[in-house]
């Protein structure tokens, strides 16, 4: 029997338009900042986010706490939600519940 090579077709996907993304500048201090809470709409997400905010607020005394909920746990926020976060927050915590 002769030995033959074999060629496999790669079955995986790739992002055809992938570009590198840059992180926004990180705040050096949270003191007095406006905190955003992005609830991903899963069960108990509100509980964990509010608990985190309460703990952080004792230390950093936020100027405001802005709470908003996504329309779907599985999909990105709609543009209106992102615009609200941009307008009303300096930092955002995105939370998952269950």
């Amino acid at each position: 029997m002769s030995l033959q090579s074999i060629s496999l077709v790669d079955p995986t996907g790739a992002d055809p338009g992938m570009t590198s993304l840059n992180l926004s500048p990180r705040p050096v201090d949270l003191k007095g900042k406006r905190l955003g809470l992005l609830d991903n709409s899963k069960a108990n997400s509100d509980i964990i986010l509010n608990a985190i905010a309460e703990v952080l607020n004792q230390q950093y005394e936020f100027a405001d706490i802005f709470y908003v909920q996504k329309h779907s746990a599985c999909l990105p926020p709609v543009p209106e939600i992102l615009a609200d976060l941009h307008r009303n927050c300096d930092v955002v915590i995105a939370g998952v519940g269950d």
Partner: protein
Amino acid sequence: MASDARALIHDLDYSQDPVEECYRRGWTDGMPVAPPTVEKVNQMLDYVGLSPGDVLGEVPVRRRVLTAEQAAANCVMAGCLPEYFPIVLAAMKALFEHDPNCIHEISAVTNSTGIMLLVNGPIRKNIDLNCTDNLFSPGYRANSTIGRAIRLIFINVFEQRPGVLDRGCMGSLTKYSVCFGEDEEDSPWEPYHVTQGFVADQSTVTVAAIQDVEMFGNRYGTTGESLMDSIVEGMASHGLAIYFGRGIKWFWVVGHWHAEMLNRLGWTRPLMQEYIQERSYRTRAQLKGLGYIKGEVVVQDETERVYAAQAAEDILIVKAGGNSGIYSNLIMNYYGVEATTVPIVNPKS
């Protein structure tokens, strides 16, 4: 839409085991796959007359497209014959048309949903798709590999790997393969796809996101009411259906002897749908007590009904399964992909 996108080709030398190479590259669902050789993938594409770069759809939220070549490679790996490929293509088309992001959503959810494929029409017999005995068991190539091809596409093309983008908590056996045909030849009712507006000799596939299949063994009931009351119990007690409260449908896969009795006693699909829908509920108080709904019980919760199906037509009745026992199966259709029926066509014909 055509594109120039071509898959990478990996040349192995004779010392490399191709099955193990697929494992090494993370291309499997845990079980061995058939190596996606260039020859096998081309056979698959030739059968349907598609070019490798033809784009079948895109999942915007994942910024991923599915090409015909990728679909064919995953079908080969699943063990599909080329004759099965039109069913896989139709199923993917149904998903893309329903909502392309649903392909991400049904894996991102923590409550573990699989994809069910119900096939109707002549193609069932052409490919020896099991419609009767041991319907949901291993043993038939078409049943086992067509659903598996969908899962491998999810894993390999859309990165829906357990613990990565597949966030199922408990997981589900339905993520291996759920593909079956209706037992049209021995059904007292018109075929399911005819109820959806298709002619009987048009082959179709119905695609639905589902949770695990539950069997019902009503063997001593002698009335339709007794049998349907057992289905009602199953639906009403399903916490997740109640929790979502929207877009939930149900497949009642009526086994042979259950169908025989229901037909003998004069039960039609509309009568059964109505009977079951109006009885499948729990009070809001009961559901709060069981932890399916958030909050403390208030007075009006004691009488407020929460229905498992919002409308009678959300209960979808299919005849399938063997005649060795007296059973039915109930399948919850989660709203990620509400039951969608599409024709199966070979693009080449």
